[in-house]
C-alpha cells in the first residue's frame, strides 16, 4: 500500500464557509480499491469532506490529489468527472424532478460526448437491478430505493474509479437499505472501485469498509481498521463515546422506537 500511488490523498485540507471552519487540517490517504469509511456525529464535517473532494465546497488551504494529480480550487477538469462520481444522501433531491430517468442518465453521456447512448443506458439500468421499463419514467413515479438505484446508475455510467457515497442509505427504509448496500458491494467487487463512504451508522461502515476515520468538529480524531472498531480496540475517548451512543441508540430503537412513530 505504501509504494503505490493512493487513489485519493488529502493533506492539510481546510474548508471555510464565511469564516466558519467546516474542515480543519484534514489529511488522509485512500488506497486504490479500498473502501474507506467516514463516521462522526452531524456537523462533524464528513459530508463537507466529500463535497471538498468533489469541488462543491470552498477549499481554503491544503492539497487534494486524485491518483497523484493535484486538484486546484473548486474547478475540476473533464478527466476528474469521469474518474470521481458521487451518490447523494437524499434520493428525493438528487434527481431532476422534470427529467425522465432516460434523460438523467443521458446527460452525463452527452456532456462527455459518449456515442451509442441507448445500449449504455439500458446496461446501466440493468446493472442496478432496474429493468428497461423504468427508462422513461419520471422520478416521482419511483420509490426511494428505486431512485437511489437510478442515482447509483447515473454515478456509474461514466465508469468512474472512485465513488463518493454521502450517506447513501440513511434516507431509506431498513429493508431497502440492505438492498442498496448489497448493490454497492456487488458493484465494487465487479469493478474494483474505490469507495469513500460517509455514514453516521457505525454498523453500515463496519460492514462495508476496510478502514475508517472518525471525525469530530471538522477534524479527524482517529483512523483505524474496521475490524479494530468491531473488536473494541479503540484509541480515543471520542470514538468510544460514539460507539456507545450508537449502540445505545440501537437498543433504544428496539425497545421504544415504535411509540414515537
Amino acid at each position, binding site marked *: 500500500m505504501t509504494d503505490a500511488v493512493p487513489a485519493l490523498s488529502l493533506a492539510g485540507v481546510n474548508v471555510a464557509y464565511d469564516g466558519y471552519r467546516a474542515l480543519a487540517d484534514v489529511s488522509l490517504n485512500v488506497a486504490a480499491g479500498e473502501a474507506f469509511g467516514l463516521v462522526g456525529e452531524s456537523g462533524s464535517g464528513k459530508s463537507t469532506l466529500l463535497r471538498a473532494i*468533489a*469541488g*462543491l465546497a470552498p477549499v481554503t488551504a491544503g492539497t487534494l490529489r486524485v491518483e497523484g494529480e493535484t486538484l486546484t480550487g473548486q474547478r*475540476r477538469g*473533464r478527466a*476528474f*468527472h*469521469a474518474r*470521481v*462520481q*458521487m451518490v*447523494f*444522501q*437524499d434520493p428525493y*433531491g*438528487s*434527481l*431532476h*424532478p*422534470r*427529467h*425522465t430517468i*432516460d434523460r438523467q442518465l443521458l*446527460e*452525463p453521456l452527452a*456532456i*462527455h460526448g459518449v456515442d451509442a447512448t441507448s445500449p449504455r443506458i439500458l446496461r446501466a439500468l440493468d446493472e442496478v437491478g432496474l429493468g428497461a*421499463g*423504468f427508462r*422513461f*419514467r*419520471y422520478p*416521482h*413515479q419511483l420509490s426511494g430505493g428505486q431512485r437511489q438505484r437510478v*442515482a447509483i446508475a*447515473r454515478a456509474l455510467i*461514466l465508469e468512474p474509479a472512485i465513488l463518493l457515497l454521502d450517506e447513501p442509505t440513511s434516507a431509506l427504509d431498513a429493508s431497502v437499505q440492505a438492498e442498496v448496500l448489497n448493490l454497492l458491494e456487488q458493484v465494487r467487487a465487479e469493478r474494483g472501485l474505490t469507495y469513500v463512504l460517509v455514514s453516521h451508522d457505525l454498523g453500515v461502515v463496519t460492514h462495508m469498509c476496510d478502514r475508517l476515520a472518525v471525525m469530530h468538529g471538522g477534524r479527524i480524531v482517529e483512523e483505524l481498521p474496521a475490524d479494530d472498531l468491531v473488536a473494541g480496540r479503540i484509541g480515543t475517548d471520542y470514538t468510544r463515546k460514539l460507539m456507545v451512543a450508537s449502540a445505545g441508540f440501537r437498543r433504544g430503537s428496539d425497545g421504544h422506537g415504535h411509540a414515537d412513530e
Partner: protein
Amino acid sequence: MSEAGIGSGQGTRAWLLSEYPASRMQARLGRAYATWLRFAANRLAVVGLAILIALVLVATFAGVLAPHSPYAGDLAGARLLPPLSPGHLLGTDDQGRDILSRLIYGSRLTLAVVLMVAVLTAPVGLLVGTVAGYAGGIIDTALMRVTDIFLAFPKLVLALALVAALGPGIENAVIAIAITSWPPYARMARAETLAVRHADYIDAIRLMGASPLRIVLRHVMPMCLSSLIVRVTLDMAGIILIAAGLGFLGLGAQPPAPEWGAMIASGRRFILDQWWVATMPGMAILIVSLGFNLVGDGLRDALDPREAER
C-alpha cells in the same frame, strides 16, 4: 369525469397514462396528458380556454366571419344605428361602420399585441433571472439593479413616455409594453433559481462536468418555466388593458385601425345617447381578459410542481 369511451379511446388513454412508457415521446405525451387532465378538472379554466380558442378562430377567419368591412362605413344611411338593427347586429358607430365587423378585425390586433409582448418579454425575463440567480455575485447585482430601475417606473407612465418618444402606433405600443413588463419575470425566475441552485440534482449535474450554460438552460430553466407560463398568462389581461389604454389615449393603434381601446375612445363622445359604441368593445376586452385570467388560474393548478411531484 366521463370514463365511457370507445375502445380505441380507452386504448389511447391507457397508452398515455402508462406507468411504463416505452419511448421518450410516450413519456412526454403522457406527462402532457396528465397535466391536461388536471387542467380539465377545473371547469372555469376550460371555459377560459374556450374563450381563447374562440378568439384565435375569430382572428384567423376574420375575413369570412365579418359581415361588413371594418373600415368603410355608410355615412349617409347607417350612422349610429342601435344594436339588433337589420344587418348590424351590434349597431354602427359615428362613421356608419359595423361595430361587430370592427370587433372581429380588432381581435387580430389584440392577439398580435398579446403574442408579441409574450414572445418579447418572457424569454428576456427568464434569461436575466436565471443567469442572475445562478451566477450570483457581481453579475447578479448588476442584472438585478437594472431590473429594479425598470421596476421603479410606473408601467403605464413609462409606456406613455416611450410611445411619445417613438411615435404613436401599435408596434411602438408593443415595444413600450414589452420594455415595461419583463422585470417581474426576471425577479420571479431569479427567486426560483435561488431555490433550486443548491439542490442536490444541480450539484450532481455539476459533478458530471456540465458547463454553467448547460446547467442554466437545461436544468434550471425547466424548473422556472411553469410558474413563468402561469404568470405570463395572468398578465395577458393586464397587457390587453394597457394596449387598450394606450389606444384610448390615442398613443396605440391609429385610426382607422379597429383596435378595441381606440374604439372605446371614439365612442366616448356619445356614451350617454349611443351607449353601444363604447360598450361593445369594452365587453370584448372584458371577455378576453376574463378568458386569460381563467386559463392562468387553471394552469397554476395544473402546472404546480408540488402537484406534479405526486
